[in-house]
C-alpha cells in the first residue's frame, strides 16, 4: 500500500448527502477481477451522458457538464469534499479504488458509512471527519474561490485552509501508523500468529461445533 503523509491539493466539492457506492462506481464495473483502472469510471452515471461499460475508452464519451467534476476549475482535484453519510450502501472496495485511482488522496465529510470508511484506510486514501458546520463553511469558501486548495497533514492531524487556519481532526492511531508507513495490515497481524493460534485452540475446546 502506498504511504500517505501530506497532501496539498485542489478541492472538489460534491454537494449532496448520502452519496452511495452505486453512485461512486456503478455495479457493471464490479465484474473486473483487477483492483486498478477504475478511475475513468468514478461517478460514471453522473459524469457521462452515455451508459458506461467496463473496458470502455472514456476519452471520447459525452461528458455531463452539469456535474461539477467535469468543470475545468476542478480538474486535477485531490481533495474530495462531501456531505453526510458519504459512501453508504454496498461494501464494494471498488468505491475507494475508483476515488483513489482518479487521483483523490483525501475525502472530507461530516460522516461516513462504516464499511467505506474502513476500506479507505486499506487503500492509502484518508477519510477525514470534520464537524458539519466546518464542512459547510469549507463548501462555501470552495464554491466562492476558484482554485481553492486545502492542505491535509496526517502527521499533525490538521486540515489547513488557504487563509492559514489549521483545523484539527481525529484519526485512529493504528490506522494513522499504517497509513503513514504504507503498512499492509496482514503482515502486521501475522506478527501475532501465535496469539491467534492460542485463541483458536481455546475457542475450539469451548465450542467444537464451530470447527466442524
Amino acid at each position: 500500500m502506498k504511504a500517505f503523509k501530506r497532501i496539498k491539493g485542489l478541492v472538489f466539492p460534491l454537494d449532496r448527502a448520502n452519496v452511495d457506492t452505486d453512485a461512486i462506481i456503478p455495479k457493471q464495473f464490479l465484474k473486473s477481477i483487477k483492483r486498478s483502472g477504475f478511475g475513468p469510471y468514478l461517478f460514471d452515471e453522473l459524469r457521462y451522458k452515455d451508459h458506461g461499460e467496463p473496458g470502455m475508452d472514456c476519452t471520447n464519451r459525452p461528458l455531463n457538464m452539469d456535474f461539477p467534476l467535469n468543470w475545468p476549475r476542478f480538474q486535477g482535484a485531490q481533495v474530495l469534499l462531501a456531505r453526510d453519510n458519504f459512501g453508504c450502501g454496498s461494501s464494494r472496495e471498488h468505491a475507494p479504488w475508483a476515488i483513489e485511482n482518479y487521483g483523490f488522496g483525501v475525502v472530507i465529510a461530516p460522516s461516513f458509512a462504516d464499511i467505506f470508511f474502513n476500506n479507505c484506510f486499506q487503500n492509502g486514501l484518508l477519510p477525514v471527519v470534520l464537524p458539519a458546520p466546518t464542512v459547510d463553511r469549507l463548501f462555501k469558501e470552495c464554491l466562492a474561490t476558484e482554485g481553492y486548495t486545502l492542505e491535509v497533514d496526517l502527521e499533525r492531524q490538521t486540515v489547513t485552509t488557504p487563509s492559514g487556519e489549521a483545523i484539527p481532526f481525529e484519526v485512529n492511531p493504528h490506522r494513522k501508523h499504517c497509513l503513514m508507513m504504507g503498512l499492509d495490515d496482514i503482515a502486521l497481524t501475522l506478527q501475532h500468529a501465535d496469539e491467534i493460534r492460542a485463541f483458536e485452540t481455546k475457542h475450539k475446546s469451548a465450542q467444537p461445533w464451530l470447527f466442524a
Partner: protein
Amino acid sequence: MAGQTLYDKLWRSHVVREDADGTTLLYIDRHLIHEVTTPQAFEGLRLSGRRAWRANSVVATADHNTPTSDWDQGIKEEVARLQVEQLDANIKEFGALVYFPFRHANQGIIHVIGPENGTTLPGMTVVCGDSHTSTHGAFGALAHGIGTSEVEHVLATQTLVAKKSKAMLIKVDGPLGKGVTAKDVALAIIGKIGTAGGTGCAVEFAGSAIESLSMEGRMTLCNMAIEAGARAGIVAPDDKTAAYLKGLTHAPKGADWDKAVAYWKTLKSDADARFDSVVEIKAAEIEPQVTWGTSPEQVLAVGGRVPDPSQEADPQKRASITRSLAYMGLTAGTPLVDIKLDKVFIGSCTNSRIEDLRAAAVVARGQKKASSIKRVLVVPGSGQVKRQAEAEGLDKVFLDAGFEWREPGCSMCLAMNADRLEPGERCASTSNRNFEGRQGPGGRTHLVSPAMAAAAAIAGHFVDIRSFGERS
C-alpha cells in the same frame, strides 16, 4: 459493573488481542465468499505466497452475476463468466467447507444458503465481502460486511482488525397488525431513524414484536439493518432459533448439540445492560410500507401521498426530495396507491425465502397479473428454496398468475445479470435498495414486502394489502 449487552458478549468472546487504543484483533468463525468482491483478495494471497488460515471456515457460492434462466447455456456475458470461473479456480486452490458453484443444485444467494445449511450459528462471528451480511445476525451471530482488503485479511489470518461499535437497542413491542411483515418493520425503522441512524452501531432488535417473527422474518429485518447504516443487526437466539437449526447439515449434532443450545441460552443482553442509545417503536403504529424515493429512508405507509418538497424546511432535505421525485418521475401529493408499475420483482436476500414466496403465493393464487405489468419475476433465494416451493406447488400458482419462475440468484436486486429495468421503468421490488440505477440505469424502484409486491402485480398499481381481498 453494569451487565453486558448481547453485542458485548459476542465481541468479548472473539477478542484475540486488544491494543491500548481499543484496536482489536477479532477472531472470525465464518467467512462467506461470493464472486464479485473476492477475486482481488485471492489474487493478493497468491502474490504474497499466503495460504488460507482455516479453509473450513469458508462457505462460498456464485450468486451476483449468474443468470436466472437458461442455465444450460452457461453465462453469456464474458466478463461475468470470467469472474464466476475465477471463483471456481480460487476455491479449488484455497479450499472451502461448502462450495455451491454456478448450476449446483444448492446454489443460491450467499445470505440464504449460509443459514439454510446450518453454517450460520448463534455466537459466531460471520463476515462476507457484502454489506447484507448483517442478515446472519438473526441467529444471534455478530455478522457484518467487509471490504475486499479485509476479505484477504480474514483469509490470511482468520481475524479482522476492528474497533468496537456503539450498542443501540431498537425495541418493537406489541402485536404486529394485519398485513404487516418483517419488511414493513424494517422499512418503518429506517423511515424513523434514517439511513445513517445506526451508523457506528451494532443494533440489537428486541421486544415482543421481534420475538414473534419467524427466523425468516428476523433475517429480513437484520438484512436491512445496514440500510439504517448499522454495522450489524442482532436478534437474541431463542427456542425458535434452535428449532430452525436442529438437523441442518452443518448444525451441531449429538452431545455437541446439547452443549451448544445451553451456550446459546446465555446469548442475550443482561437485564441491567447499558446501551448507548435506545429507540422504542410501538408495533401497532407500523403499517404496510412503500418507498417513494431513492433512499430506503424515503418511505411511507401505503395510505400516504408522495411528499411535497415545498413543505420541507431543511434546505438539504428539500433538495434531496426534489431530486428523488425528479428521478422517480413522481408528482408531489400523488397517493401511493395511484402509482402504476411496469415490473415486479420478488426475490433478493431480503425476501426470497420460502416464507416470502408463500406470502406472495397466497396473494397470487387464482389471480392474473394486470395486463399493464410487463413482467413479474419470482426468483427463489436458493436451490433448496426452489425445490421446497415446487414441492408445495407455489411455482404453479405463480405461473398461472402470469409470473415468471426463475433459477436462484441475486437477479434484479442489483441487475448485474440480464434481469434489469429499462430506463424509466417502475418496479415494485422486495429487495433492499432503491438507489438510482440499482435495478438498471434509469430504473425506478419501490421497496415493499412480498405480499404487497404480489398484490401490486395483480392490480397494476400499489394496493393496501390489508384491503386487498375486499376489492372487486
